[in-house]
């Protein structure tokens, strides 16, 4: 599958944004972290900013972005429509929570309810995003039991690392938050390793034989219907060289998981502000690593239409 920049950025940014939003909604709403104006303002701006930037970016790949409002109508059948509805609906409790927590400096009561609803909305939205990919049968690497949990785990991971950085900067960091961010990163790493292991051993039942209805033997493509790459090959026939794939996987291991995990581990031993600097450093590095991971998620996904082209 062609890794369109707009979609790769969209899923990476909204993942981190919803992860952070859910974290702030729960911790802020129930008063685990104190209602500090600047912490709240920067935290909420970061979370909602990432979400808004991602959503805007996703409209960038539309052929007719001016009709995007129509995408809210088919929630009964379409995961993409459900994602649109859930993402916009989440803004309502998020705004209420933000006003109560940041501007009124309150927690508990209705702010806690709004925070809880915000977190729930974030989880639902990330699930709908994951299901868009997990529901596509022609792409075996996506239509797997690994896809939906991956979206949830990675959103939790990137949101938690971002949240930890924020709290560390405001001298509100705690061992519990640090350990949570570290565990989430390790969980993400484990899930990605398991996913790649699964994908590398995948035996896809759909072959050139079933695609053409020609039973038995081998079916070899000897002539394409067109001389140049068409829409299908540009969109679905994207291929990545094996050596690049291996290299990009190593970059993902390093940037998305190993380096943030090491940074978070040493934060425990570092005094402020060194601990804060290491925490802040972990967040953008992990974001960059997850961007590569998401790029690979597309680039390594093989669509059944490529079978018709002998690929």
């Amino acid at each position, binding site marked *: 599958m062609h890794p369109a920049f707009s979609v790769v950025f969209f899923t990476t940014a909204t993942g981190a944004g919803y992860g952070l939003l859910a974290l702030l909604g729960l911790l802020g709403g129930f008063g685990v972290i104190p209602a500090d104006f600047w912490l709240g303002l920067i935290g909420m701006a970061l979370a909602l900013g990432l979400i808004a930037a991602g959503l805007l970016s996703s409209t960038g*790949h539309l052929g*007719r972005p001016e009709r995007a409002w129509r995408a809210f109508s088919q929630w009964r059948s379409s995961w993409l*429509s459900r994602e649109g509805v859930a993402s916009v609906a989440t803004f309502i409790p998020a705004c209420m929570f933000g006003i109560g927590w940041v501007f009124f400096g309150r927690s508990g009561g209705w702010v806690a309810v709004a925070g809880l609803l915000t977190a729930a909305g974030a989880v639902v939205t990330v699930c709908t995003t994951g299901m868009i990919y997990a529901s596509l049968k*022609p792409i075996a690497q996506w239509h797997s039991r690994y896809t939906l949990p991956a979206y949830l785990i990675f959103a939790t991971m990137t949101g938690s690392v971002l949240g930890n950085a924020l709290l560390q900067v405001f001298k509100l960091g705690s061992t519990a938050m640090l350990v949570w961010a570290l565990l989430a990163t390790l969980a993400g790493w484990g899930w990605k390793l398991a996913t790649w292991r699964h994908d590398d051993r995948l035996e896809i039942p759909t072959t050139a034989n079933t695609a053409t209805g*020609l039973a038995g033997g081998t079916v070899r493509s000897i002539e394409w*219907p067109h001389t140049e790459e068409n*829409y299908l090959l540009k969109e679905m026939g994207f291929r990545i060289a094996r050596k690049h794939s291996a290299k990009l996987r190593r970059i993902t291991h390093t940037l998305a998981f190993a380096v943030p995990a090491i940074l978070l581990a040493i934060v425990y031993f570092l005094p402020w502000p060194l601990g804060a600097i290491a925490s802040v450093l972990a967040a953008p590095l992990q974001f960059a690593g997850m961007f590569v991971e998401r790029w690979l998620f597309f680039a390594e996904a093989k669509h059944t239409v490529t079978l018709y082209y002998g690929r």
Partner: protein
Amino acid sequence: MTCLPARTDRKLGLVIDLDTCVGCQACVTACKEWNTGGHMAPLTDTDPYGGHVDGVWFNRVHSYEHTTERGGRTVNFPRSCLHCEQPACVTVCPTGASYKRVSDGIVLVDEDKCIGCKLCSWACPYGAREFDTDVGVMKKCTLCVDRIYNDNLAADDRVPACVAACPTSARHFGDLGDPASAISQLVEERGGVALMPELGYRPTNRYLPPRARSERASKVDAPALEPIKAEGGFLGWIDRMLSD
């Protein structure tokens, strides 16, 4: 509405005979010609005379070499929308632009509602949908809805353009939901198959596999060619010089 109908009154579709298709591309050009002025018009071409020609086509003919223990054969394979009974391209559509008709089972796109998110083309395992980069919407085979119900055409011409154009009658059109229809009988008789049945899209179109190789064909007992004799004289000398 992108929820699928529980059942359709008819299941209009195509049956393609892989035994008689000669890969002449007549159906491809007939489809393009009709549809670039039809229901889903235009079928935009970009850089049509340049080095990076690209464009929207509803019907593409591939060629394959099918090799089994009984030998190899060339199979020409037209590929177009199969008007599935479980078309995920319809259910994934967020805007309601894609729909499956209750009356005849044809899968269509309402171009005025399409936002060009391309998700339907990802959901189609057969590569039936092609994006029009110029108009910014998705396009696909309409089964020539503007021909098959067209009272302005003679009754014989009320078939999809690809079917009308086929010089070897390798393409058949009809109601595959009616077991008594000629097309259903043909599928029954020739053991027509659905493509990628394991994915569960339940395509309406069927492909008739190539017939078994016949042993009845006459053997040609022509004598083997004689080796070319080098002639004498000047030409013979040149031949000998060049042969070494």
